[in-house]
């Protein structure tokens, strides 16, 4: 990631923590990281750069600071845009992913690998090439594509694949469709690297990746919506954004038990059960989480009385001691998530 990529992730009002952004990208999903990811509207970044080294954003941040684009908050880790930074951000036509709202429902990286290899395989098949260098991918992708190919192989496969890919890409901006297509590898087309495309399009390689992911999401979404060759290949890469164990805790909640009962039944610590619930609350739409069972009307009223102003400024330890004694941090955090999801304006 370069300075320009980080610039696009910052805000002029809200201080954002560099480490949170880094942990989202690296898929270090602690409740705190997820909560702030939600507050920053950056949850779509989860797991997009799993191999990003720790501290990889420090250099881009330093560069932004040297150019006077950011100001630093209470700790050096918290940054927000300066007026100059805001102007710079407004001036660049940085790519805004179109489909990011649904990224968390798909294992995007796996889908990307599968689509790339499938396109190559079908393209070579369409040109009756028997021997070619396949893209180097992990074993799981290779096996999935191989199984899929033997299932769908037919005289009309390449035509059908072409038609559905074209239809999907037409839903996206022209520039995105171009990038996604140029990154494909196939018969007599090695494909361009993200680096090469970035230079040609005068964007950063990271932007090129975002454009490609838009394409992947669009293709996968369309393949799910109607039956076409890629449908079978991509069926198994859809997933819940919530981890399996958190899903189980949430399901147990649905049976009307208290937190302590659930923890005992699932043989986990109550604190773990609370983390599971917070994770689910953050990652699921509001109507898929039983807020009403946990946040009683009294509780909400009591919180509403003391918690005013921007959500980001709320502090558990700043609440009256009596309220802290009555309600654990868990309820405070869940209330904030509920307000955030209701779109309560940060007054």
């Amino acid at each position, binding site marked *: 990631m370069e300075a320009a990529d980080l610039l696009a992730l910052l805000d002029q009002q809200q201080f954002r923590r560099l480490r949170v952004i880094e942990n989202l990208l690296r898929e270090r999903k602690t409740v705190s990281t997820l909560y702030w990811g939600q507050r920053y509207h950056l949850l779509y970044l989860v797991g997009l750069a799993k191999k990003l080294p720790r501290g990889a954003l420090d250099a881009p941040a330093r560069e932004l600071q040297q150019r006077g684009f950011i100001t630093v908050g209470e700790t050096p880790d918290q940054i927000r845009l300066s007026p100059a930074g805001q102007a710079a951000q407004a001036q660049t036509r940085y790519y805004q992913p179109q489909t990011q709202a649904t990224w968390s429902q798909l294992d995007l990286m796996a889908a990307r690998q599968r689509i790339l290899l499938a396109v190559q395989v079908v393209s070579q098949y369409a040109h009756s090439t028997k021997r070619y*260098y396949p893209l180097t991918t992990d*074993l799981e992708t290779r096996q999935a594509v191989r199984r899929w190919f033997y299932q769908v192989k037919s005289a009309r496969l390449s035509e059908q694949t*072409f038609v559905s890919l074209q239809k999907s890409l037409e839903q996206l901006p022209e520039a995105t469709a171009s990038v996604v297509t140029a990154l494909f590898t196939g018969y007599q087309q090695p494909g361009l*690297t993200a680096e090469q495309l970035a230079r040609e399009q005068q964007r950063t390689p990271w932007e090129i990746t975002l454009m490609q992911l838009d394409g992947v999401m669009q293709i996968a979404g369309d393949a799910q919506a109607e039956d076409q060759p890629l449908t079978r290949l991509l069926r198994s890469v859809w997933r819940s954004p919530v981890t399996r164990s958190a899903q189980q805790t949430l399901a147990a909640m649905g049976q009307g038990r208290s937190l302590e009962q659930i923890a005992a039944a699932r043989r986990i610590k109550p604190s773990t059960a609370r983390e599971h619930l917070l994770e689910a609350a953050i990652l699921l739409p509001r109507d898929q989480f039983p807020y009403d069972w946990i946040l009683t009307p009294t509780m909400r009223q009591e919180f509403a009385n003391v918690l005013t102003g921007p959500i980001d400024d709320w502090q558990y330890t700043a609440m009256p001691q009596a309220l802290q004694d009555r309600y654990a941090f868990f309820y405070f955090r869940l209330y904030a998530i509920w307000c955030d999801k209701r779109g309560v304006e940060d007054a």
Partner: protein
Amino acid sequence: MLEPLTTSLEKVFGFNTFRSGQAAALTALEAGQDTLAVLPTGAGKTLIYQLYGYRHPGCVLIISPLLSLMNDQVNRMHMAGFRRAAAINSLTSYSERQEILRHLGDYQFLFMSPEMLAQPQMLAQIKQLQLGLLVIDEAHCIVQWGPDFRPEYLLLGAIRSQLQQPLTLMLTATAGQTTRQEIAKQLRSQPQIVAESVDRPNIFLDVEHVENEPEKQERLTQLVGQMQGPGVVYFSSKQQATDTALSLQQQTGARVAAYHAGLSSEDRFKIQQQFMADQLDVICATSAFGMGIDKNDVRYVIHYHLPADFESYAQEIGRAGRDGQQSIAILLYASGDEQLPLMLGQANRPEAETIHRYYARPQAFSEEDAAIALLAFYRRHGISEAAVIQLFSRRERERNRALAQMLAYVREPHCLRHNWLQAFDEQSPEHQADCCAPAGMSPDLAQLGLLAKAKTAPVDSVDDWRARLHRLF
């Protein structure tokens, strides 16, 4: 009774005749003789063990030092129609490794890194296999001493004994008498030697001295601008390869890309394929580039940095002119360039004093330091302090000798080819005008027919995506 070798060759590869060295190596192996095949790059060394594997039962185990390129090798096996091939190294994911191990007995060809084979559990698994042939690829790595030095190669002799001395094929592109003897000694084998000359008469040799770094950049830009591609420029650093690729593209208009082990496998794949499909004119590469590239019409290889030894230099320039057409190998040298290979060599070489202190109290040292990790490796494998000190000083002598040889080449006043071939204990033909241009003489690029004929087409650009998509299918 086995069918004749040529019949198998015809069946598997569709060729009528062997290239020189292939048949001799196969005949020696089939007579039960360990074989050291010293065959130039592009001579088809892979075919020897492919055909052996085809004709004989048992697994062919190939030990290869180049992690990032091992998957390319497996792909090449698949391309050649050998489906039962797999690679295991430290880059192989856990689940993939488990999957391969479950079916270990089913593979006809297994590629493995030396450090993977050195692990006791892995070795135990391999002992269970019926090994038809053990192949040591890039066998010169046993004696080379550079940043890519792999201590595990030194264990191969012991491992080979543990595997009950299987029939062994040692492969290398370049090895003089000393290197050959050292390889045989390390592997505890008395191999039959099958060697072809390293000389490539169609590669013109050129050494150019420049004053300093900016002048070197300038000369490189000039050469790339003038010469007929495709070409490869070798660097010792990834960063410099990347930066120079960008500046060459901007200044010469040629289509240039960088290639090094730091790229993702997808990018490496694409750049290799672009180069093969003539969509690139120049590759700025580190030594990671080369294997897996079957490009016959590379017209020039330029070395921006001084290689550490003649073996690597011969390997790298050997990628030029495989089609037999006139090509050129240019070495750019500024005084002091020898410092870089010296530094790279010293980077993980511990002092005798450190070795002594380490052996006295190993637990007091952190293995995060590369030099200490190397010592820990030796110690764990039961090599004594005295032996390690001796090993390092011998290595250092060899390295200095190798570098001195490179420098002698750079300063050779009369005939570069003579100097080069002498290093490999070979006779050279009489020097002629189309042979070489030592420092101070310039090659006549026009006379050699190496000047660019026409401006190349622009970089493959993002045209109409619908048309592009349609071409794919």
